[in-house]
């Protein structure tokens, strides 16, 4: 017997960042919003309190703030034809669980995508000609421009109190900032973080080579800051416990600190925890979503009717829900037809370690998630791809995020993996090593997609989602090119030794890389190649909106949160101003 609840205006699947934005914006517009969160309630007090929060084993190794893969997981394979196996432990990426979602345990690195990225296919054609890329680089235009999104980037940065040094305000390039960023309407609301010693060494090396170092834009607040909703952030204490942790200092922008209290204050936003959504219900004749069915904390199946359904779950979860609900045409890699699950992309990561062998004291434990110095000279819009034959790029950064004892023990290549020699090497290099991150873009490939796997079932008896992914040739070329540049910077930094972690030949789901899964329910201009239109509105059901990074047609060489937040404000704005006054398709087909 399914419990049927009274209808609400909006039901959001997920209780993280995008649901909180929707709750605030639509709550202000007089609409009731119910967010269904699969995990528990979490808040700064009592859940993120020190000293228990600084428990590396509990939070980083055992993933206490993350999705429980015993309840629901995915299967994975590298290519079509390989047998997909279930992900029984978290590894490559760490979807959040509980109120606040992955934005509780993020680092705070808050980037904007370069303008070229939003019309990548057109840009490549105009700049490099028709035959520049192989046919299997299935990049697309987003259907909206950087200029349209800019006010929402700006507002999201003010909500989060981002600290940084603007490199381009209104088209005029500013010293010290990122000269390759798109024009900003205003500078960052807060000054940048203090530069770490590793950042200063990186800066010197990068400048020597003529590059343009700048502080990474940070969601770890640098001042006492009051955001446009009247919510306050405290300055970051550089404790080195951001990624995989909640912040006890009220210093990291998270839904708990910068959004949820304001959304709840509207009186129309409700977060229902321990609510595991199984499917979106829809009426194929009327072409509308009617609500969602979820399993509540007591194991009861509940139907929540709503006039508008918003998918605000983690990136790959949105397309999986669409597939399980039978909404939209599933992507088929054999015919390359269909849209749901198409253009699943990720992030192409590599790194360089510079070993100073005791001659520098880095103090890596004095860190913060977004404490870093970066160069953007090799991101997509910064250089000429002409001689290289690939598209995309990466930023290179020296991050000083942590010196936590389990995670942080850099040793030169060739060091034994265990025993006395390893221990000696750890002691020698722990405090004297700088790590450079190459944060690369990810272009789509027809073989990379999200589907369903009926061989395995989750705790509710539903099929698991299935990811098929490997690094495309285009991205390997890109990664090797930019990693080579990072290697040059590493050399210029004057260490005694250096090791380079080039991109692995195949993607593996075991080792942690990034929680930047993107695509699968992509936005675009054409219903035959995208799931949602430029307002994140489903082409099939006009009252269904799909938020989050699942909308990215391809992933840029940046962290996605800034763009996820800006897109959510853009879409929420369209819902309030355009959709609600006259419900229907916002883009004619």
């Amino acid at each position, binding site marked *: 017997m399914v419990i049927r609840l009274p209808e609400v205006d909006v039901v959001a699947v997920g209780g993280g960042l995008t649901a909180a934005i929707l709750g605030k914006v639509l709550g202000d517009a007089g609409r009731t919003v119910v967010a269904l969160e699969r995990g528990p309630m979490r*808040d*700064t*007090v*009592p859940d993120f*309190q*020190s*000293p228990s929060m600084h428990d590396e084993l509990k939070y980083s190794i055992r993933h206490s703030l993350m999705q429980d893969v015993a309840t629901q997981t995915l299967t994975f394979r590298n290519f079509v034809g390989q047998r997909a196996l279930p992900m029984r432990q978290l590894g490559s990426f760490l979807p959040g669980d509980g109120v606040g979602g992955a934005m509780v345990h993020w680092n705070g690195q808050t980037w904007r995508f370069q303008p070229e990225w939003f019309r990548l296919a057109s840009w490549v054609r105009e700049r490099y000609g028709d035959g520049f890329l192989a046919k299997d680089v299935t990049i697309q235009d987003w259907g909206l421009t950087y200029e349209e999104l800019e006010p929402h980037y700006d507002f999201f940065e003010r909500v989060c109190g981002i600290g940084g040094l603007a490199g381009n305000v209104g088209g005029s390039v500013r010293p010290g900032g990122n000269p390759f960023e798109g024009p900003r309407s205003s500078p960052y609301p807060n000054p940048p973080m203090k530069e770490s010693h590793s950042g200063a060494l990186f800066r010197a090396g990068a400048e020597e080579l003529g590059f343009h170092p700048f502080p990474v834009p940070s969601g770890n607040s640098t*001042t*006492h800051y009051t955001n446009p909703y009247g919510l*306050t952030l*405290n*300055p970051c*204490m550089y404790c080195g416990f951001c990624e995989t942790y909640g912040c*006890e*200092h*009220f210093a990291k922008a998270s839904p708990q600190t910068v959004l949820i209290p304001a959304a709840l204050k509207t009186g129309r936003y409700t977060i229902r925890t321990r609510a595991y959504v199984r499917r979106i219900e829809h009426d194929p004749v009327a072409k509308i979503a009617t609500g969602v069915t979820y399993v509540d904390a007591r194991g009861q199946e509940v139907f929540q009717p709503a006039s508008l359904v918003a998918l605000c779950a983690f990136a790959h979860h949105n397309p999986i829900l669409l597939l399980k609900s039978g909404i939209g045409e599933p992507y088929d890699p054999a015919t390359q037809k269909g849209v749901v699950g198409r253009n699943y992309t990720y992030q192409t990561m590599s790194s360089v370690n510079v070993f100073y062998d005791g001659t520098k004291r880095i103090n890596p434990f004095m860190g913060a998630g977004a404490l870093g110095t970066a160069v953007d000279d090799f991101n997509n819009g910064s250089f000429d791809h002409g001689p290289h034959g690939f598209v995309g790029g990466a930023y290179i950064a020296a991050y000083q995020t942590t010196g936590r004892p389990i995670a942080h023990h850099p040793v030169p290549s060739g060091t034994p993996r265990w025993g006395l020699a390893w221990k000696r090497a750890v002691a020698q290099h722990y405090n004297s090593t700088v790590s450079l991150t190459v944060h690369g873009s990810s272009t789509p490939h027809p073989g990379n997609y999200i589907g369903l796997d009926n061989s395995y079932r989750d705790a509710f008896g539903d099929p698991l989602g299935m990811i098929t992914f490997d690094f495309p040739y285009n991205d390997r070329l890109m990664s090797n090119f930019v990693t080579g540049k990072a290697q040059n910077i590493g050399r210029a930094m004057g260490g005694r030794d250096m090791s380079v972690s080039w991109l692995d030949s195949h993607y593996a789901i075991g080792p942690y890389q990034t929680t930047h899964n993107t695509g699968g329910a992509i936005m675009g201009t054409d219903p035959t190649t995208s799931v949602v239109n430029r307002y994140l509105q489903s082409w099939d059901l006009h009252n269904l909106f799909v938020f989050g990074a699942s909308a990215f047609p391809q992933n840029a060489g940046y962290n996605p949160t800034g763009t996820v937040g800006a897109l959510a404000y853009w879409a929420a704005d369209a819902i309030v101003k355009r959709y609600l006054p006259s419900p229907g398709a916002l883009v004619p087909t």
Partner: protein
Amino acid sequence: MMMRLAAIVSIGAVIGTAGAVAEIFRSDSGSDTSLMSGRLIALGGSVTQAQPPCAQCHGLDGRGHGPFPSLAGQGSWYLYKTLRDYASGRRQSSVMQPYARQLSDTETQAVARYYASLPPPPAVEKVGHADKRQEGGAISAAGLPGVGVPACATCHGPRGQGMPPIYPSLAGQPAAYLANQLHAWKRGERGGDPLNVMREISRAMSDAQIEAVASYFASTSLRSEAAALQSQNTERPVGSRAANPEIQDAPRPPYLTREPAKGAAEPSAPR
């Protein structure tokens, strides 16, 4: 955390004996001379300038009273920085500034190191009403989330034990001193805090809440913390060792010594 506690235990355990001085300097990479010259400044005035010794206000044992803070067992870098802040005027005090200015950098380091090496004050008395201390303890553990005050413990450690080098110990500080500092921050008269964290915190607190946390921290002790750890490590029943704040003669916990603990298994031969 364990390292910090270990340091407290080691200081508490060895101070007052002839071996103590050498022990501290081995761990602090200082020199015997600097500890002795720090002691001379603390108890007898500056080596180079004739001036009243620190002990005149802060007590022979460095434990302070009333408006004078306890320096004993405080983090050495924090003490050093505080003296430099007084000297530069970043932290205002017409009393402390002249002293701080007369000390050379080496002397400042020496006196800071000396006080850091002293055993911290014991929890000798419960300050204020139990309800007040309870309220203060709750603020210490959970903050005042409604007004954005983080828990004191997030920086100053559980029960105010401090997190060296930056965050001072609050445990066993005189209640009047603690309340004075919070009020000075509230009025904008207290420097030495580049991010103004304590200013914002104190402004969000009522006078009654300030009194509560001051009473709470005045009633806690680094020593009882150390003693509690000691009792855990020696597996004594709670109440014997933990109830006794005098831990000078206590054996060092096993992880501070190179010998295996009593009863520990012999290392087995490789198989």
